[in-house]
């Protein structure tokens, strides 16, 4: 892989959950997460609610400061080596809640034009650019430019949010559940728009979703997260075809199928994930894993390379390697 365009290095983020001194409790939202993004690729991120997907996204775009670890853009550490403001125009984000992510008192054209003006583009140029971008995402600027967020549908609002992110001419866009709240038909349109834009502008996406079908459709590589850690990361085809972590297997087994013969008969994964304030010892998944054995409850599984750029953090792989 050439120089990654964006990379995360051992990102850690703990949130305070009350208490002082020794009794202080922390939510381990993201614990030692590292990955790299090649220019032009799309990395899908999946996992249950509360597994740290959104926190990872916010760390990646520097909306949150990591407790430790760093984010690098084209190999340069953001902050000391690359000024934050320069980084901002390179890496943008689209949020899940299309309504909350638009200022209710701003017209759509102003919302899109705001970003460039922050970076020194003149008001009239920014407006012109915003018009072009609204047009590009499929909204007639004459009809929608002067409207407010509550006058648009969810799909239209999310198109505006995409236009706003594009207004910076970014290289990377982090999409945090960006299509999850949309109707299926609208979701498909927005996904197609995202794929067209990716091709046109050579964009790199981090695509966070809980919808495994959508992630498979759009991603080159997929990262599976569990309780703030990376369980498995690898090319979409090999990860979906031959998962090497029981958690990935369970997620894939839980995917709804349209084929009645493939009906999911029993829940592959029972219960809620454990409390991230007090995660299980050893492998964090061992409490819910059907195939847990000896070392799982005591030893933290290392990252096993199980294929070409395919890595899984599960002790079972040591056994497989042993056998092979």
């Amino acid at each position: 892989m050439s120089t990654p365009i964006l990379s995360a290095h051992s990102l850690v983020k703990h949130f305070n959950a009350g208490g002082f001194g020794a009794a202080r409790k922390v939510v381990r939202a993201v614990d030692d997460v590292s990955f790299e993004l090649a220019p032009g690729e799309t990395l899908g991120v999946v996992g249950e609610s509360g597994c740290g997907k959104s926190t990872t996204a916010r760390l990646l775009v520097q909306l949150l400061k990591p407790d430790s670890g760093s984010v690098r853009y084209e190999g340069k550490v953001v902050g000391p080596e690359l000024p934050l403001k320069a980084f901002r125009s390179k890496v943008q984000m689209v949020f899940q809640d299309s309504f909350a992510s638009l200022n209710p008192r701003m017209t759509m054209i102003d919302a899109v034009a705001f970003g460039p003006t922050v970076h020194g583009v003149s008001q009239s140029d920014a407006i012109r650019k915003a018009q072009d971008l609204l047009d590009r995402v499929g909204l007639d600027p004459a009809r929608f430019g002067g409207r407010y967020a509550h006058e648009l549908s969810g799909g239209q609002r999310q198109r505006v949010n995409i236009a706003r992110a594009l207004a910076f001419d970014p290289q990377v866009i982090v999409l945090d559940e960006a299509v999850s709240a949309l109707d299926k038909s609208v979701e498909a349109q927005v996904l197609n728009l995202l794929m067209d834009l990716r091709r046109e502008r050579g964009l790199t996406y981090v695509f966070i979703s809980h919808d495994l079908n959508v992630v498979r459709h759009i991603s080159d590589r997929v990262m599976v997260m569990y309780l703030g850690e990376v369980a498995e990361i690898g090319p979409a085809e090999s990860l979906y075809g031959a998962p090497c972590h029981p958690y990935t297997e369970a997620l894939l087994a839980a995917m709804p199928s349209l084929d009645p013969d493939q009906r999911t008969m029993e829940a592959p994964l029972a219960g809620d994930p454990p409390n991230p304030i007090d995660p299980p010892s050893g492998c964090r998944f061992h409490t819910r894993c059907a195939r847990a054995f000896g070392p799982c409850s005591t030893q933290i599984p290392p990252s096993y390379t199980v294929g070409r750029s395919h890595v899984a953090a599960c002790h079972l792989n040591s056994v497989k390697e042993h056998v092979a």
Partner: protein
Amino acid sequence: MPDTAANITELAKIERSHGYWRSVWTRFLRDKVAVCAGLVAAGLVLMAIFAPWIAPADPLDGSMIKRLSPIGTEGYPLGADELGRDMLSRLIYGARLSLFMGVVPVLIAFAIGSAIGIAAGYLGGWVNTITMRTLDVLYAFPSVLLAIAISGALGAGILNGLLSLTVVFIPPIARVAESVTTSVRKLEYIEAAQASGASSFQIVRQHVLGNVLGPIFVYATSLISVSMILAAGLSFLGLGVSPPNAEWGLMLNTLRNAIYVQPWLAALPGVMIFLTSISFNMLSDGLRSAMDVKQ
């Protein structure tokens, strides 16, 4: 191409008027009670402004033989007070000082309190803690007591009364400003603005202010009646406006001795205070519900 751009800016301008404030206005007009309250409040303000033209007599001109004339005496439609001054004229002129003491401290406190509250709410963290806990110390005093204490220390007079009322209203307005700002700050459009690389000042100016000033202002409107009553209380205690000026609280004070002789006369300033405070309160209630955008 440039003329299309011009068309679009033109259109954006037209569309803008159909925006938020217009829908607030439509919803406000549907609320009959609030509209009535608004009319009464507007009437009171006009009455204060045009007092010299409306008032039938000089509010300071007394007549010893007409002292405590009952309501309906010829030439004295609302009677005369304990010094024989025309009650109607005094009530009309009284609106000037009373409304002034009701509105001005709230406006000053609105400006200062919002600035403090928005800064604390947006910056958060220890700045927020220190600012808000400091204000809580002031907030812990009952407002009447605090106003009396400050006025008492500074001495009687309109300006000192104004100052003490302003100090009383800064903490509650700052608190509301802080809580509204804190809730807005967590929204994703603020995060998006932060991700754009805009400075805190730019974000507050362009994204925060427009969304928090409305609710804070509505809250401040509801304080106008409180301010009027507190000002009346200060005058009643001899700390605010001094005689012979016409001010409703002061009039209530000087007429209290006449309550057994002319109870209806003595109650008139109280009626005015009641009318003003209830109309401002209902107006602010109406504004609050009109501004409540439920999607």
